[in-house]
């Protein structure tokens, strides 16, 4: 098999494949894909391991532990699959490599710090908007939810507004 790390699928064909996966998920489960919900559950699990009394006193965390173990959840298993599928695709295309992606002149420590900080912002944001780019923009957008479309346009607006200030990390 050809392994060219800089060769990607045609974006429109990749989009059709993604649309097919999404449609199949609607048919099987009655809802679409997601990601940030699994991250939250990992956080609930960790918080509950360190401070169980505190975790059950926080409404959103108590909700995630109500009926099952916090990791006994559809999105958690979907994300486990994503890790497998992502690793498989990266390996078979020669992209499975431990590295930090950044601009050549930007420091590694700075890049990791920004990645972490951006993650914190997105974790907070995705809880506020009841889903992220996968669970809200993509999955709600394709079944014509007005809130999902408002969310998606807001993501683009926020991204374009912030881009200029963050340009140095890609140089």
């Amino acid at each position, binding site marked *: 098999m050809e392994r060219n790390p800089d060769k990607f699928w045609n974006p429109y064909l990749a989009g059709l494949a993604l649309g097919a996966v999404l449609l199949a998920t609607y048919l099987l489960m009655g809802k679409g894909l997601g990601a940030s919900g699994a991250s939250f559950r990992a956080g609930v699990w960790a918080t509950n391991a360190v401070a169980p009394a505190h975790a059950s006193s926080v409404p959103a965390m108590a909700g995630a532990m109500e009926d099952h173990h916090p990791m006994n959840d559809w999105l958690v298993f979907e994300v486990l699959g994503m890790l497998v599928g992502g690793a498989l695709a990266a390996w078979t295309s020669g992209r499975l490599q431990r590295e930090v992606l950044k601009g050549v002149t930007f420091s590694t420590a700075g890049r990791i710090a920004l990645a972490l900080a951006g993650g914190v912002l*997105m974790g907070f944001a995705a809880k506020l908007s009841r889903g992220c780019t996968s669970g809200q923009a993509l999955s709600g957008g394709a079944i014509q939810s007005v809130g999902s479309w408002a969310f998606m346009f807001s993501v683009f607006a926020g991204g374009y507004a912030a881009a200029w200030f963050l340009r140095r990390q890609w140089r």
Partner: protein
Amino acid sequence: MSFPLSYLADFDSLSGSPRLVGLAVAVVVGIAFGFVMERAGFGRAQKLVGQFYGTEFTVLKVMFTAIASAMVGAVVLSGAGLLDLEAVQFNYPTFLWPMIAGGLLLGVGFVVSGYCPGTSFVATASGKLDGLATVLGVVAGSVIYAEVEPALGAFPSSGKLGAFTLARWLHLPASLVAALVVALAIGAFFAAEAIERRGRSRSIPSSTASRSTTLGTEGVPT
């Protein structure tokens, strides 16, 4: 046969073997989802943020194609009586204000980190340590949200419109909305291709040309 499968719908209330089947479906769906995203280039931060610097529009092309094609599929299957589209839409209620605020904040976080929550998993799976840092950040951020949520009062539930769809908002049939979305997508694709072509004609290498190419050398205005 009609979808969604009554056996698996309302997963959260399932227990016993239907729940196990649902979790197995989740793993299979996740593998396909992760594989497609990686092959689309969504494990590489530069390909994602290129969208916000006007250097490449892979995010727009993949996302919009996926949304438009899944929407057409859902509308066609619903018209054929195979899919209960309203049952799916019921799972995506609109809370307008927190969704706009969350979207703006997530967009900023996307540019700060270089990934969105889903793509950070794909990046992690392909060995990118900045992807892993984003994953850990998202976990922390969502826990912080849970901690402060009581202090946000009624805001997270504000702008509540229920399962409010574009079709209901525009007073158009869902099939016509899907056709409009397809038209909008095609228009956006032509614009994106034109902008990318203009960038390339300035003899700027695209991020696919070299592994170590940085966005800065691809024509981000200085």
